[in-house]
């Protein structure tokens, strides 16, 4: 973990270049089996005279962040040869801090997907079991941390794209308050939902990295004024009396009494055990009930808003200014050809859905109603946050699914239990997933979401819960040594 590496570097027990070379060796060693990376760096590069807690520490960056002079594909063929000419703010800040980039990680094409199986360069496999997916869209970043290639990686999160793969990969995944970290240089998917965040193997590390990359940015008008807090200093605060709630409609075993799904039952049973341990430590945890109809609307609301925004955000992918040029006798024809060849089927299906939603006859019924439901959901959670410091829920109903998973997409379990984390994107709430148990030898995460601007509180709560799980610092890479 980062502080241990920092100590070794400071005591000259290891050099930064040695850490980089070790990360590089592992990156290559695991690449064929797990496919975490689009690009693995071939040269050690570090900013001279950098002096921060991250100086000399290797890391990985999702391949939808602009990196000047380094191929950035967003895992899509339409950007397969794109080499940016400017740096994303996150990358710039990490460079200035002296962190060392090891590689650019694989994502679901254009960050639109939750499986890690739709990248132009192939599927990402789960480090805990190769027959299972790692989840997405920040699949490669999650896998690179789970494998122990790097101590931290950067991801982006529009619906749960950091927090779900963190659950499936047995790592920590954190997205702060909307705007806390600049989105400049992150390829936009759905701008009103997009967040930058981190993967680490401990909550402390998540605080360390966020402390470095947060802050207002004149290039991103939605970035927030810095709160001038050092989250690392707050993670050990006393939590006695902190109040959390969980949602009955998601967590109560009675909801699933007709289910024969043993993994689901075990996941929820272990979740309840965790709540008891939290209570013993001084947390107050209560059950609240939320209208089921509203909860069932989370996923369609997410799909509606995100696909509509994506349709417009990706209109710049024409193959004219960048990307492979299409064939044709007019501008329209060459754009048509470039987009037909450049997007995969799944992306096209999402875009068509976005197009459908934005048709004049559907705008009121679908798009605007989804925006209205977004408000109802956010208002409901904000109201609960008047009384409670945070919401605690299982990040998924089991460990990572197998690749051939064909779960029922209209079931309550799918619509609510597997998709509730989009609440964090709707309202911009800080939200973190940490591993809390193993079910059928696969890790499962618990998700904690808090009030906007209270990133320090969420990290503090998560840090205390992490102590109770006994799973701090786990990595699948240990199994492969």
């Amino acid at each position, binding site marked *: 973990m980062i502080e241990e590496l920092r100590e070794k570097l400071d005591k000259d027990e290891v050099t930064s270049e040695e850490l980089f070379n070790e990360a590089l060796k592992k990156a290559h060693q695991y690449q064929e089996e797990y496919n975490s990376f689009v690009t693995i760096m071939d040269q050690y590069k570090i900013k001279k005279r950098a002096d921060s807690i991250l100086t000399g520490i290797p890391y990985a960056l999702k391949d939808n962040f602009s990196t000047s002079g380094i191929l950035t594909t967003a895992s899509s063929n339409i950007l397969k040869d794109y080499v940016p000419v400017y740096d994303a703010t996150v990358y710039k800040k990490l460079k200035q801090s002296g962190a060392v980039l090891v590689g650019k990680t694989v994502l679901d094409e254009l960050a639109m997907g939750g499986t890690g199986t739709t990248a132009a360069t192939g599927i990402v496999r789960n480090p805990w079991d190769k027959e299972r997916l790692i989840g997405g869209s920040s699949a490669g970043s999650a896998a690179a941390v789970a494998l122990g290639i790097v101590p931290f990686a950067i991801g982006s999160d529009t619906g749960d794209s950091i927090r779900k793969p963190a659950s499936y990969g047995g790592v920590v995944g954190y997205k702060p308050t909307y705007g806390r970290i600049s989105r400049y240089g992150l390829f936009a998917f759905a701008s009103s939902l997009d967040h930058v965040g981190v993967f680490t193997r401990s909550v402390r590390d998540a605080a360390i990295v966020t402390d470095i990359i947060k802050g207002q940015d004149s290039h991103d008008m*939605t970035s927030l004024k810095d709160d001038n807090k050092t989250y690392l200093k707050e993670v050990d605060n006393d939590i006695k009396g902190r109040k959390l709630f969980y949602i009955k409609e998601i967590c109560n075993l009675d909801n699933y009494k007709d289910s024969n799904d043993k993994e689901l039952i075990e996941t929820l049973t272990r979740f309840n055990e965790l709540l008891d341990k939290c209570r013993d430590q001084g947390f107050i945890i209560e059950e609240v009930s939320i209208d089921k109809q509203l909860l069932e609307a989370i996923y369609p609301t997410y799909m509606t808003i995100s696909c509509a925004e994506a349709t417009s955000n990706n209109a710049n992918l024409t193959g004219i200014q960048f990307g492979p040029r299409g064939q044709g006798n007019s501008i329209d024809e060459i754009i048509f050809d470039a987009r*037909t060849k450049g997007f995969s089927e799944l992306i096209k299906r999402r875009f068509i859905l976005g197009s459908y939603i934005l048709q004049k006859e559907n705008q009121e019924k679908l798009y605007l109603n989804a925006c209205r439901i977004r408000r109802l959901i956010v208002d409901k959670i904000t109201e609960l946050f008047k009384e409670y410091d945070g919401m605690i829920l299982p990040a998924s109903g089991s460990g990572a699914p197998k690749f051939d998973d064909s779960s029922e997409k209209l079931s309550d379990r799918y619509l609510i239990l597997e998709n509730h984390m989009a609440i964090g994107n709707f309202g911009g709430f800080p939200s973190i997933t940490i591993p809390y148990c193993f079910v059928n030898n696969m890790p499962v995460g618990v998700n904690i979401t808090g009030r906007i601007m209270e990133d320090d509180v969420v990290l503090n709560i998560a840090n205390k819960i992490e102590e109770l799980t006994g799973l701090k610092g786990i990595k699948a890479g240990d199994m492969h040594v």
Partner: protein
Amino acid sequence: MIAKEKLKDYAHKLMFDMDDEEYQTLQEEFEIILKQMDVISKIPNISEVNPMTFPFRVDEERFLREDEIGDYLTVGEVLANSKHQVNDQVKVPKVVEE
């Protein structure tokens, strides 16, 4: 079931196409999606709610300031990823006919 022609029209409006088999898959997928979407319209009194398009209120005015010269890209950088260029411009097929 939604007509394939409609789906084709939506795709063409976004300037791409798919093959027949892919439209078939999409047509089937749309059945499920439309059922999921039904939930959106079923929430009572939804039309009275003010649509939310941003996570929370942000005071954007703080970014208003006098113009200042910042970093900018050179012509070479702007054109670096373009495959066809002439006279420092991106070359595309002729738009105006002779």
